[in-house]
């Protein structure tokens, strides 16, 4: 068992941890990125691949701005990864459409986006409510049930597996150590500063520590005095055979990948730690997709899978720094693709600076420490 020393040890090599580790490596930090193994619940490998802003941040305008900033930074991230490892994550930002299948749904979209525009204030919030004719201009494949929709220019999509692969290859190219099979059992502060993790691959010491372990973050964060109440939310995806390009904009439930597959998704369910795919969920996803785009009926489904989003009670990320264990951070969110650019270019800087900026204080974990009313 060798003991290695780093500027920063990042626990969790999914999209959050890998993005932060990549940013740290770019900043010249000596980084160890610890991954568990394939038996873990890997939300990052089950992703739909949207870089999505529309509708996010109701009740938390900072989250709307944060998501939007990441969709802007994504261009730089895609360029940086292409340059560092030669693999482009295929980021496209044509804007995104939420499709309404009834006047009620359209009214809900309108109200939600009007509220977000109001909350954005001087930052503005560009969107367009699409009537029945306009939504068909953008998406000619819409079926007769489509009542309208909403468009925002900030939305896009990427290939999440290429993103994952690109982050790993690029951080290694920049000198970071990627350690697989390194399940972390124990975190201990070191006398004189820094922290040491005891992993199945030995002891690894770092001046700082980032816990970005998805569903594993709850137990690990408790070791540095932070209560991180993440829980699994089940999502499911259906993939069709590849076709020529016909869907010009990603939508919340259906998108066409750069390689031609159609991804159908959008389900949300609470089933604990059950990541399997369920037939009933597949049916619901397929039915909604068919009502939206009837031409999908001619396509075969070639794969389907379930995955577990790393959800917080209010749906917003947690970015926090331990008070009891100096140098230890916890980062977690359910939008690892959307926020990847922020995590690479911004969150990594917080670790280097050893402080989370004041404007991000609303994402601290203690927002959940509210006594329940009787």
């Amino acid at each position, binding site marked *: 068992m060798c003991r290695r020393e780093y500027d920063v040890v990042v626990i969790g090599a999914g999209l959050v941890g890998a993005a932060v580790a990549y940013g740290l490596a770019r900043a010249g930090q000596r980084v160890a990125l610890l991954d568990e193994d394939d038996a873990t619940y890997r939300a990052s490998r089950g992703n739909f691949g949207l870089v999505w802003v529309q509708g996010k941040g109701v009740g938390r305008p900072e989250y709307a701005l944060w998501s939007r900033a990441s969709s802007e930074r994504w261009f730089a991230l895609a360029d940086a990864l292409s340059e560092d490892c030669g693999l482009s994550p295929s980021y496209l930002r044509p804007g995104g459409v939420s499709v309404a299948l009834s006047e009620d749904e359209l009214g809900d979209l309108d109200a939600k986006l009007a509220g977000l525009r109001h909350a954005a204030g001087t930052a503005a919030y560009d969107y367009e409510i699409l009537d029945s004719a306009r939504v068909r201009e953008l998406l000619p494949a819409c079926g007769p049930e489509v009542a309208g929709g909403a468009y925002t220019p900030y939305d896009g999509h990427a290939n999440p597996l290429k993103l994952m692969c690109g982050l790993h290859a690029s951080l290694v190219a920049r000198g970071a150590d990627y350690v697989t099979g390194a399940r972390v059992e124990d975190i201990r502060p070191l006398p004189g500063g820094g922290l040491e993790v005891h992993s199945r691959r030995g002891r690894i010491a770092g001046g700082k520590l980032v816990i970005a372990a998805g569903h594993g973050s709850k137990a690990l964060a408790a070791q540095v005095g932070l209560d991180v109440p993440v829980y699994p939310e089940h999502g499911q995806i259906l993939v069709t*055979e*590849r*076709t*020529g390009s016909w869907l010009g904009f990603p939508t919340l439930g259906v998108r066409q990948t750069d*390689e031609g597959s159609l991804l159908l998704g959008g389900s949300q369910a609470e089933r604990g730690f059950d990541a399997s795919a369920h037939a009933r969920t597949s049916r619901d996803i397929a039915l909604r997709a068919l009502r939206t785009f009837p031409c999908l009926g*001619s*396509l075969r489904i070639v794969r389907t899978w379930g995955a577990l989003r790393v959800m917080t009670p209010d749906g917003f990320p947690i970015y926090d720094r331990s008070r009891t264990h100096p140098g230890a951070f916890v980062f977690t969110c359910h939008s690892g693709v959307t926020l990847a650019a922020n995590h690479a270019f911004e969150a990594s800087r917080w670790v280097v600076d050893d402080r989370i900026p004041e404007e991000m204080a609303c994402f601290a974990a203690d927002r959940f420490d509210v006594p329940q009313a009787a």
Partner: protein
Amino acid sequence: MFRRLPDPAGRIPFDFEGEPFEARAGDSVAAALLANRVLTFRTTPVSGAPRGPWCLIGNCHECLVEIDGEPNRQACMVEVRAGMRVRRQRGARVVPD
């Protein structure tokens, strides 16, 4: 390259790219094409590279062909029938309106 085991079962005529081909009863389309020395079943939607069967058990989707006008069929998962019309899957299929 591929040689048949002795098989008393009957011959089944089918059509590949407009040419008459022969299969044995029980052949998958993939087996029948391979036995007829066809190696390129499709070209990929992304780069146009030529591809042929790899797994032969329905997983890899490398053996896609058009069967009786239906695109993107897995040749390894479909049994040959007499008179079947099979073509290469060239690039991405088109989605009908």
